């Protein structure tokens, strides 16, 4: 794991949390959308909070795809869940909302889960056979298998 890879995981966490909260803030301003009034969607997209939220969620998606290219799904997903913790901390210290003991317990559980995974390897699945090194590995293991027979 390089510093750059940790930065990508941090991007996954921060962009998801920031994007979701901006969308939620913007949609409360834009009002509810029903099937019968679909033009409400356009009004919602024109809302600057919603627009910035969408851009942030696109950034989340790009960094999520980036992370999945070199790490296991079961390694990346707990990292995304740290976003919930981030949101609760922002609610407490920036927005001065009340965070109930139940939520603090939830934060503790998620943080514990993330630290469990972070201590292990990032990639455990089979390397995909398209890259040069792996092709060589496949060939040599096939040769070894042939020798055994």
């Amino acid at each position, binding site marked *: 794991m390089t510093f750059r890879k940790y930065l990508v995981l941090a991007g996954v966490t921060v962009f998801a949390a920031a994007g979701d909260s901006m969308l939620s803030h913007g949609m409360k301003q834009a009002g509810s959308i029903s099937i019968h009034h679909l033009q409400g969607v356009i009004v919602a997209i024109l809302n600057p909070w919603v627009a910035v939220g969408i851009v942030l969620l696109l950034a989340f998606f790009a960094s999520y*795809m980036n992370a999945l*290219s070199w790490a296991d*799904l*079961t390694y990346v*997903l707990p990292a995304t869940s740290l976003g919930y913790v981030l949101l609760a901390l922002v609610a407490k210290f920036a927005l001065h909302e009340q965070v109930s003991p139940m939520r603090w317990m*939830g934060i503790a*559980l998620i943080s514990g889960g993330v630290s469990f995974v972070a201590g*292990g390897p990032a990639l455990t*699945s089979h390397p995909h056979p398209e890259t040069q090194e792996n092709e060589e590995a496949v060939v040599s293991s096939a040769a070894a298998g042939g020798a055994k027979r």
Partner: protein
Amino acid sequence: MRSVYTWGGILVVVFFSVVGDVVLARAMKQVGDVHDLWQRYGLWTVIGRTLGNSNFFIGVAAMALAFFSLLFALSWGDVSLVAPAAASLTFIGNAVAAKLFLHEKVDRRRWIAAALVAGGVALLAG
């Protein structure tokens, strides 16, 4: 009867989310390490290889279906039940699916993590 609809909706959301995550994870493994590709061949190669991968589009379509089924489920049940239940069951479902279909080594450490995170998410939104 209403709760049957709500839980049915939650399960549909979880199903599509898990399919989306697993297929996207497979797509990106097929694309290869984005950092390496970017350094060797440039950004356009990364974008071209990603958009040229059919699994990528299947994954995005599954994610879109998950999103729309979440909207339906939310119209049948309370947000405080649907959102955390769907999110935490997706964590468990992903751990199982990653082991079965992506052949990730989901060891005891990762099972515990999935369970802790799923429980934590349920508590946070509850």
